[in-house]
C-alpha cells in the first residue's frame, strides 16, 4: 500500500477541505469538517480499497493520517 495514494483516498472523504492540505502528519480530527459521518466514510473506504475492517476505536485512538495508515498496513 502506498502512503501517497492512501492520503488521497483519505482526503476524498472530505468535500469542503482543500485536498492539498492533507499530509501524513495531518491531525484529521482537528479539521473543521471532520464529523462522525466522515469517520464512517473512512471506515468504509478502508474496507472497499484495502479490505480492512477498521473499528470506531481505531479512528478514535488515532491522531494523524499516518496512524490510520499504520493500522491498515498491519492488517494487510
Amino acid at each position: 500500500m502506498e502512503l501517497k495514494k492512501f492520503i488521497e483516498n483519505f482526503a476524498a472523504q472530505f468535500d469542503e477541505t482543500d485536498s492539498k492540505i492533507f499530509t501524513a502528519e495531518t491531525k484529521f480530527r482537528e479539521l473543521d469538517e471532520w464529523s462522525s459521518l466522515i469517520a464512517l466514510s473512512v471506515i468504509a473506504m478502508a474496507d472497499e480499497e484495502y479490505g480492512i475492517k477498521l473499528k470506531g476505536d481505531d479512528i478514535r485512538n488515532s491522531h494523524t493520517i499516518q496512524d490510520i495508515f499504520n493500522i491498515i498496513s498491519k492488517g494487510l
Partner: protein
Amino acid sequence: MSAYNPFSLKGKRILITGASSGIGRATAIECSKMGATLVITGRDKDRLNESFLQLEGDNHVQITTDLCKISELNYLLDQIRSLDGCVNNAGIVKTLPTQFISESSLNEILQINTIAPILLTQQLVKRKIMNKNSSIVFTSSISGVDVAVLGNVLYSTSKGAINGFVKNAALDLASKNIRVNSVTPAMIKTQILKEGSISEEQLNDELKKYPLKRHGLPEEVAYAIIYLLSDAAAFVTGSNLLIDGGFTLL
C-alpha cells in the same frame, strides 16, 4: 382455576427466527415463560442451542436454518405442521455511508432482513401452516420508519420495506384472520451492535438523545412481541409498536 392473564401464550405454537442471539433469544425465552411451545431457528448451531437450553417448558424444537437458502427454508417448513404465531426477527446491521453502497452489500442486507422473512411469511400462508386467529410479528426498527441514522442507509432501506410489507400483508391476510404487526425498537443492547463499527463512546453519546436516558433491553422488545402474539392483541393488525425510550419525541 388458572390465573387470569390475557397475555398468556399457553397452548400456542410459535416460530421464532434469529433466536440464537439478541432480541430473538430474549423473545424465545420470554415466550416460553408465557407458556408457548416454540420452534426456534438461527444460523449458528451452538448459539441456537444456548438459547434452546434456556427455554422453559417442554416440547420445544430447535432447527439450525439459513433462511436465505431455499433448501434450508423448505426443510424448516417441512418440519412444521401448524403455527399460532411467527416472529420474523432474524436480521443484520451494516454501516455504510450512501456513496459506499455496493450491489453485494445491498443484496446481502435485503436478502437477510427483507426477502427471507417475506418469503417465509408467504410460504407459511401458502402452505396453510398459520392457524386461524394467528399472529405474525416482524422485528423492524425506528431506523427507516420514523428516523434516519448516519451511515445506516442499508439497514433503513431493509426495514422501510418491511414496514410497507407489514401494512399491506395485514390487509391481505385479514380475511384469513391472520394478524400482521411489527415492533419498531430504537437502540437495544445486543451483540449486533458490538459487531459493527460503532464505538462504545458513540453509543454513550447516543444515550443523551433518549428521554429515558438509556438503551432498551432485548426483553423489553420481547414483551411487546408477546403482546402482539397474544389474544390481548386480537383486534390489532397492521400496526407498528414503538419501543424507543422516547427517542422519537425529540
